[in-house]
């Protein structure tokens, strides 16, 4: 390997998360974390090509109705029709184009199509609850769906999850891979939900709450929510002012 290649192989590292802005693996109020969190400290890894590259193409085949969860069946699903739109940015404020976003959610009654969800709420034959899309050159994306209902779980007595949509996002690097949940503003269940509350930093926690947006809302058709997603970005390079 020539010297020039070696020099170019030294990568620009990514920014590290600030304390409190991401959940700890162990979060006792969330019971199933107790046996699934490492007990040894993580080992700090310098960023190499292995971490700053990641799957950016070839696994993101998108179908015509993949970003419209209300048009995937013969009829329309029941529930409040919503538009969810926003941008994927890195922590430097730069758009992340061609990012694959996958999402999944419960129906308006709070029931997942998933076979493991046996809670006694009706399935909707016109709703599966999965979507995928790619961001455009400006990092923008858009989905049409119905608002998911809250649903019960067994974490503690009378436990209910706030209504949410699961998001999976592939940025440019394997280390910026993000799986998160989008919530709706003003949900009374926030204070009671150990998953939402697992983020100590208030400003970071607010990032997970979408914002009602009248401009996105379409008259006589659907309410609109904005949800911008911020992925880790690289540290400034010497070439930037």
């Amino acid at each position, binding site marked *: 390997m020539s010297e020039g290649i070696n020099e170019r192989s030294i990568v620009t590292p990514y920014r590290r998360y600030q304390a409190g802005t991401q959940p700890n693996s162990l979060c006792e109020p969330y019971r199933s974390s107790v046996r699934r969190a490492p007990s040894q400290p993580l*080992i700090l*890894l310098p960023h190499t090509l292995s971490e700053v590259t990641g799957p950016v193409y070839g696994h993101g085949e998108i179908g015509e109705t993949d970003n419209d969860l209300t048009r995937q069946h013969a009829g329309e699903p029941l529930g409040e029709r919503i538009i969810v739109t926003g941008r994927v940015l890195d922590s430097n404020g730069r758009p992340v184009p061609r990012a694959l976003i996958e999402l999944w959610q419960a129906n308006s009654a709070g029931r997942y199509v998933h076979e493991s969800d046996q809670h006694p709420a009706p399935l909707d034959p016109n709703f599966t609850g999965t979507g995928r899309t790619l961001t455009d050159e400006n990092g923008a994306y858009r989905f049409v769906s119905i608002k998911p209902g809250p649903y019960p779980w067994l974490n503690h007595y009378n436990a209910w999850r706030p209504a949410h949509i699961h998001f999976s996002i592939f940025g440019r690097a394997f280390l910026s891979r993000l799986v998160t949940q989008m919530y709706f503003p003003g949900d009374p269940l926030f204070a009671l939900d150990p998953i939402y509350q697992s983020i100590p930093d208030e400003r970071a926690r607010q990032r997970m709450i979408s914002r009602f947006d009248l401009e996105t809302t379409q008259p006589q058709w659907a309410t609109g929510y904005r949800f911008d997603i911020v992925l880790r970005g690289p540290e400034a390079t010497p070439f930037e002012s």
Partner: protein
Amino acid sequence: MDLVPTPSQTVGPFFHFCLTTDKNCVACIAGPKVRGERVWLSIRVLDGNGEAINDAMIEIWQANSEGKYNHPDDPQPKPVEPEFLGFGRMGTAKDGSCEFETIKPGRVPGPEAVLQAPHLNVAVFARGMLKQLYTRIYFAGDAANREDPVFALVPAERRETLMAHPDPTHPGGWRFNVRLQGDDETVFFDV
């Protein structure tokens, strides 16, 4: 600008119908025409009680046999075969395991351009995990392991947890355990 990144939340128990359906899982990281030593890698995920986790998801990211990533930011002037994806994703079955088909990666430059030993980059997701954990899979017996700069950061007594071992019953087969907690807990990295 310095925006606070969006926090991670658990993938939960209901991701399969979106992320790991037959259409959306990726069991084959390198198609049949891709050059390199063919590997069938079985990964098993276990919790702190040693019990199999049947609702985990494993993602793998790796270089090809020449140590080149299928990514525009890899500046090495080496080819990437059209059938080489470099990415895999599967949900675990009832016994906590999933199996990928791939090729053994080549050596990739690391810190200070010192070559790393062949390794797969792994992200583990599951219900009960509020964020993914990152680990690496190395190949037991590879002479390059001794020179690997990342390995050197790991306490000697824990390095074994990063090793896949050949499956004696299956030529080309390798096995790797992810132990989230407890005795022989897998080394996870703060990336």
